């Protein structure tokens, strides 16, 4: 199979489609913020030392009396210019704070997705090539158990077994490891094992079923029979002919699962105290740090849209029928 080049037009079209989605997300977030009761100047209103004229002047200065669409416009412009507000709790710009935390989250999510795919593809393909066999049934049952187990419970059980009973792995993620060189990396890997496993197993369990049904759809097609009748070995038919086609829809599914992965990441970061944007979100919520909360929500929404875009482009690259439709 030769990989064809994705037309530039296709990529540009997908990029343009992304803009309304991002605008839509910003409208949803802004309306939530605008609808939410509570006025930033409540405190001033009850403070007798502030005369009403000063209060009115302040409101006018910050545009609180403008019509809603104008406030949205100012908010959006500020957002685009990277002015995301100031965190009252951490005493730094929201954008700096998020950029500090984002890499950890991306590493954890990325590693767990790789783990999920590494589990789901072999298991799903094996199960589909022997439908209703013992292996298929066992795999199916485990997949069900896997995505019925809430991530917060799996996390606690892993801590109980591997940190408390066996004392193999640390259960608090530390960003300030004193060691250098190999020991430094080893410590980082050791403390990432459990969060990545929790997320990866959850994702993998959901993916196994998709992979299985996708392979089952393809394996019945005529071209597979043709390949077999040409005398190609069964193993080669599966790996070269079936899996290649069957994985195309799986790419989209991996991207569609991103919102769920983020939810899982928030919980996992909270349990293992991973200093990512998920735990930042929870701690700012508990500390009433609204600018950070809005920033993190917007960033995670943007990341999901970007992953969808990547999936669309990959899809066009893998499946030539899509790009020229």
């Amino acid at each position, binding site marked *: 199979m030769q990989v064809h080049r994705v037309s530039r037009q296709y990529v540009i079209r997908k990029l343009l489609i992304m803009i309304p989605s991002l605008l839509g997300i910003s409208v949803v977030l802004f309306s939530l*913020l605008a609808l*939410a009761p*509570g006025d930033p100047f409540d405190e001033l209103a009850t403070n007798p030392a502030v005369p009403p004229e000063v209060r009115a002047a302040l409101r006018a200065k910050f545009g609180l009396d403008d019509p809603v669409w104008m406030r949205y416009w100012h908010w959006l412009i500020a957002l685009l210019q990277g002015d995301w507000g100031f965190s009252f709790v951490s005493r730094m710009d929201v954008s700096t704070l998020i950029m500090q935390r984002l890499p950890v989250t991306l590493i954890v999510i990325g590693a767990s997705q790789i783990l999920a795919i590494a589990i789901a593809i072999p298991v799903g393909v094996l199960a589909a090539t022997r439908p209703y066999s013992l292996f298929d049934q066992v795999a199916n049952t485990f997949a069900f158990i896997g995505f019925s187990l809430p991530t*917060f419970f799996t996390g606690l059980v892993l801590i*109980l077994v591997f940190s408390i009973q066996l004392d193999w792995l640390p259960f608090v993620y530390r960003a300030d490891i004193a060691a250098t060189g190999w020991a430094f990396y080893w410590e980082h890997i050791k403390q990432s094992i459990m969060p990545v496993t929790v997320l990866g197993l959850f994702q993998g369990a959901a993916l196994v079923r998709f992979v299985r049904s996708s392979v089952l759809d393809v394996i019945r097609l005529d071209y597979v029979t043709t390949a077999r009748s040409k005398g190609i070995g069964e193993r080669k038919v599966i790996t070269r002919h079936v899996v290649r086609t069957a994985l195309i829809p799986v790419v989209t599914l991996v991207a569609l699962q991103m919102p769920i992965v983020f939810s899982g990441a*928030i919980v996992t970061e909270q349990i293992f105290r991973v200093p990512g944007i998920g735990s930042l979100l929870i701690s700012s919520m508990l500390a009433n740090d609204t600018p950070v909360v809005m920033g993190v*929500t917007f960033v995670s929404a943007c990341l999901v849209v970007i992953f969808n875009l990547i999936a669309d482009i990959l899809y066009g690259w893998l499946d030539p029928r899509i790009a020229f439709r």
Partner: protein
Amino acid sequence: MALVSAFALAVILFAVVAGPFIWRVPINEIDFAAKLQGPSWTHPLGTDDLGQDLLSRLIYGGRISIAVGFAAMVVAIFFGVLVGAIAGMSSGRVDAALMWVTDLFLSLPQLPLLLLVIYLFREPVKGVLGVEGGAFVLIVAVIGGTRWMSAARLVRAQFLSLREKEFVEAARALGASRLRQVTQHILPNALGPVIVVATIDVAAAIIAESTLSFLGLGFPSDVPTWGSVLRDAKDYLDIAPHWALFPGALIFITVLAINFIGDGLRDALDPRRVL
């Protein structure tokens, strides 16, 4: 598997509904002499750090968690069927706009959005409806409000194919109004897959509620739900593992049972199934 699950779910439902009448230990009776005890005859599931009885707390919490699950499912399915039906019946612009909104909601990260809504609206709703009622209404509304999309897409797809079928055309030829076509002819035939989605939504809503409570943004911490008991227990894993294991296992078994039932229903209701 679905039958076993139905039985397990029935046992749990019976326990949480009838439990308080059989096991009469109050949920908030503090007894420091008996704190952090493992399972025993006086406290079958052990006690927490204030010596409160876990069995009665979990029975009470199960009521809330399961009630939230079902109520949120009803909200989600109601909106999903409504949006899907409107989109499926009207073609063109309305359909396109509704589906764009649906796709937009699908691409929003759910948990951050849930957390954001609860964060912004928690206090005022609490003021109107009281602490517990406010939390219940808010949590049900936001979980339902972020989970209607799959039902909407499904109903729309069903409507698009069903409305061109002969029996609907016959009804139309006989002069049935649009509303009658929908309620009498199309909707009943579209319900099968919707029931499957509804079942799975209950499980997802229970997980969502437990997650919120676990993160400390669901029900207030003095109201025991399965998630909030687990949250309290997580700092005592080393000395009182039973405290975390029981609520976690309950969530897991309930969700697993509901998922298996949904899977069984899917097999039973699938019209394309090969006999």
